[in-house]
């Protein structure tokens, strides 16, 4: 039987919404379920309102759902703001001793004295959040041992007393909720397996892991939401794996350090958001000109300017495609979900190094911060392809070396400084094969053509877009990047309503897979491009590259992520 269950945890910033949600997500995965958990928070450290939904299903899930089964309210405002999202028969858990308000009828409220339970069970009122998790888990009659194990894992580093205190607080909440479970509430989540071969992580954790697995040896950056998490994750592993993470004075420096490290011979990366990326684009062009591999993660959030710093958007596709002065080849990949984020990151490093040019990974705040349960990454499948990087032996045989040798592919075999005795010279001015400054028209022309030829080679390595066909489909839903889960789910829900639509989703955007896109769109009478921006950037790109104008768009630019429900609603106007 299909299970698709949605918790919502809400409270003020600083109240622990994210950790409650994380524990819930993790134990649900360990109970054999698929989990998707999004994070909604303001740009402040304390106060305001934040919430997180934990969606649990025995079928694949990869997007949020708006309707809630259990609302876990850490403060009063959470109930006010979210009660309208509760499904019929859903339950809102709250601590009536701290939230003293009559919520009237309509929804079902379960008053659990969380603070009192925590105080009684563990002599620690601060463990009321743990009691809350216990209550939520008890309500659905989930296996308490999974929760207890998780809490012990989390808290043992603070001493076993703390750990056991938390287990007791959780148990108190669990028992209370089971005993007081409203009769109408009959939904249960029983473990259906274990999560042994699965991981629960965010998109940016996946990017960080992908970068490390791909052999990234140098990271420099400047903190900026939503990519600080990438820098922080790798920084935490810096010492164990020898991957320095340099916090630079600004993004200009971060980018240029990465180019220097790339020139010297390691795989190197930086990560930022739109504002920081603005400061990096000159360095991006430098990488293009000097043919230096580098990887840049651009985690989008709503602009212009500072915009909504802790919200999501896909407003920088065109900027990523054309950022930097002059013309040079680049790769732009836009992972479709958490799992894809790992593999696209690996690919970005390979493309950057094979084609000796920048690769941009376009993510966004939603992908960055949402947790998804995914199959464990098979590290044996990670192929590190350093392209035409010469071996030490090859270099030792060289008597002269031309860093920018003219070749048919446009790719010049790459030696590194001190790899042998040859000199490795390159220049941000236009240069000759030796890397030295020139002014003549002929060399300039040949160098431009050489560099641009690499774009052709790269194009042959771009994967086909993700395509899901349904028999009899008249329309195709087109998307890119992090919206994949919601669009795919919309297709399925529509299918159940008897409306067949295809899905065409781009996760490798540049060089543009024009043929595949054109043929898929031409197959359909209608095409609706769905994206998180105001100007329909993918729709425009499709027109640019294929001449085809989509028949409709669904654009959302309020900083909040798409859900399948939202898409279906909007489709009514467009289809």
């Amino acid at each position, binding site marked *: 039987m299909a299970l698709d269950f949605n918790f919502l945890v809400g409270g003020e910033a600083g109240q622990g919404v994210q950790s409650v949600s994380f524990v819930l997500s993790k134990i649900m995965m360990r109970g054999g379920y698929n989990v998707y958990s999004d994070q909604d928070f303001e740009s402040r450290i304390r106060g305001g309102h934040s919430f997180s939904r934990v969606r649990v299903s025995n079928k694949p899930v990869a997007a949020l759902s708006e309707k809630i089964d259990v609302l876990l309210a850490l403060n009063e405002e959470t109930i006010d703001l979210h009660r309208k999202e509760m499904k019929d028969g859903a339950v809102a858990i709250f601590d009536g001793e701290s939230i003293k308000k009559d919520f009237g009828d309509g929804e079902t409220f379960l008053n659990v004295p969380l603070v009192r339970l925590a105080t009684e069970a563990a002599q620690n009122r601060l463990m009321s959040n743990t009691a809350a998790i216990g209550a939520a888990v008890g309500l659905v009659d989930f296996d308490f041992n999974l929760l207890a194990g998780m809490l012990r894992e989390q808290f043992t580093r603070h001493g076993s007393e703390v750990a056991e205190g938390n287990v007791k607080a959780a148990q108190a909440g669990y028992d209370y909720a089971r005993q007081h479970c409203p009769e109408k509430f009959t939904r249960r989540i029983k473990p259906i397996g274990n999560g042994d071969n699965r991981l629960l992580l965010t998109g940016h954790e996946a990017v960080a*892991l992908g970068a*490390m697995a791909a052999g990234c040896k*140098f990271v420099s950056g400047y903190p900026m939401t939503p990519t600080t998490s990438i820098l922080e994750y790798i920084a935490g592993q*810096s010492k164990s794996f020898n991957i320095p993470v340099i916090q630079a004075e600004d993004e*200009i*420096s971060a980018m240029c350090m990465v180019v220097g490290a790339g020139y*010297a011979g390691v795989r190197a990366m930086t990560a930022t958001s739109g504002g920081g990326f603005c400061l990096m684009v000159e360095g991006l062009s430098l990488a293009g000109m000097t043919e230096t591999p580098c990887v840049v993660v651009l985690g989008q959030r709503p602009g212009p300017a500072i915009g909504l710093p802790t919200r999501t958007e896909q407003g920088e596709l065109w900027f990523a495609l054309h950022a930097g002065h002059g013309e040079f080849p680049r790769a732009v990949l836009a992972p479709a979900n958490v799992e894809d984020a790992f593999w696209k990151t690996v690919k970005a490093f390979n493309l950057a190094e094979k084609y000796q040019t920048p690769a941009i990974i376009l993510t966004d705040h939603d992908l960055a911060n949402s947790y998804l349960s995914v199959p464990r990454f098979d590290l044996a499948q990670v192929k590190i392809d350093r392209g035409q990087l010469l071996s030490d032996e090859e270099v030792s045989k060289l008597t002269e070396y031309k860093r920018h040798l003219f070749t048919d592919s446009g790719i010049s075999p790459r030696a590194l*400084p001190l790899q042998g005795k040859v000199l490795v010279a*390159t220049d941000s001015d236009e240069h000759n094969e030796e*890397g030295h400054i020139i002014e003549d028209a002929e060399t300039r022309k040949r160098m431009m053509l050489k560099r641009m030829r690499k774009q052709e080679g790269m194009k042959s390595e771009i994967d086909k877009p993700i395509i899901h066909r349904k028999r009899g489909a008249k329309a195709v839903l087109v998307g890119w990047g992090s919206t994949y889960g919601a669009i795919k789910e919309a297709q399925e829900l529509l299918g159940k309503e008897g409306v067949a639509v295809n899905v065409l989703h781009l996760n490798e955007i540049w060089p543009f897979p024009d043929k595949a896109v054109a043929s898929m769109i031409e197959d359909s009478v209608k095409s609706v491009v769905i994206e998180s921006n105001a100007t329909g950037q993918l729709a425009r790109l499709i027109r640019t590259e294929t001449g085809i104008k989509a028949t409709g768009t669904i654009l959302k630019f309020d900083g909040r992520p798409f859900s399948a429900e939202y898409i279906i609603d909007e489709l009514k106007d467009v289809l």
Partner: protein
Amino acid sequence: MTMTSAKVTIEDYAAASEIAWCPGCGDFGILRAVKKALVELQLEPHRVLMVSGIGQSGKLPHYTKSNMFNSLHGRALPPAIGAKLVNPELTVMVFSGDGDAYGEGGNHFINAMNRNIDMTYIVHNNQVYGLTKGQASPTSDLGFTTRLNPEGAWVPLRPLALAVACDCSFVARSFAGDLEHLSKMVQAGITHKGFALIEVLQPCPSWNRVNTFKWYSERVYKLDGDKSYNPADRTAAFNKALEWGERIPIGLIYKKDRPLFEEYTGAFGKEPLVKQKLDPMQFESLLDEFK
């Protein structure tokens, strides 16, 4: 920095490109002094990485032989840092103009001095933007007029005072017209363990008709022989760094033993990062943390 037994000669440092500086430019003196220092240190070109910004100064690496990375205007230091951190076996020399270093690159300048990574930073200070045809630079003297600054340049920065304020571990000044002094300073900068700033007074006969070869010659005096001057004294160094006008000190202004950034954390490992093996499988244990 690694020495070798093969004899290194000045021919090893011959120009890789035709020199496009103006006749009489102070940059020639800097180039000569740099080559001389490298030969005297018996450093082979392939052990050296020269990184430069954009300006007349930025062309220097093209006019000798070494590994080279000619970066953007104002961005000589960051790529040099990236390269040095991943391959500390390289002897890294960085070349900037006064505009490049103190204007466009001001933020990197301060931070690089504070970071104290082992490299030598040579700033060609001609008190003007040379390559762009003569605009005031951050070190142009008060009132220096150009087409862009017809009412005269504003008060100059005092970069060496900034250097002392940043506790830069080696702060020196020299003069492009004094080959011996300059090449000795360059040698000292290269052998210094840490970030060495060497500002070189460099006449630009094309655009700076005020601070000429003669102007500098009449003003510079050497600190090096002066027993009463102690470059380890930060207060004295600060005052010395502010000295500018009728008399301009050259020589070692400030020196401080400081830990190197690259030795501070254990993140770099024992072998240079460029030589470390890439093995995806080593991250298996990390995945467990997400179970």
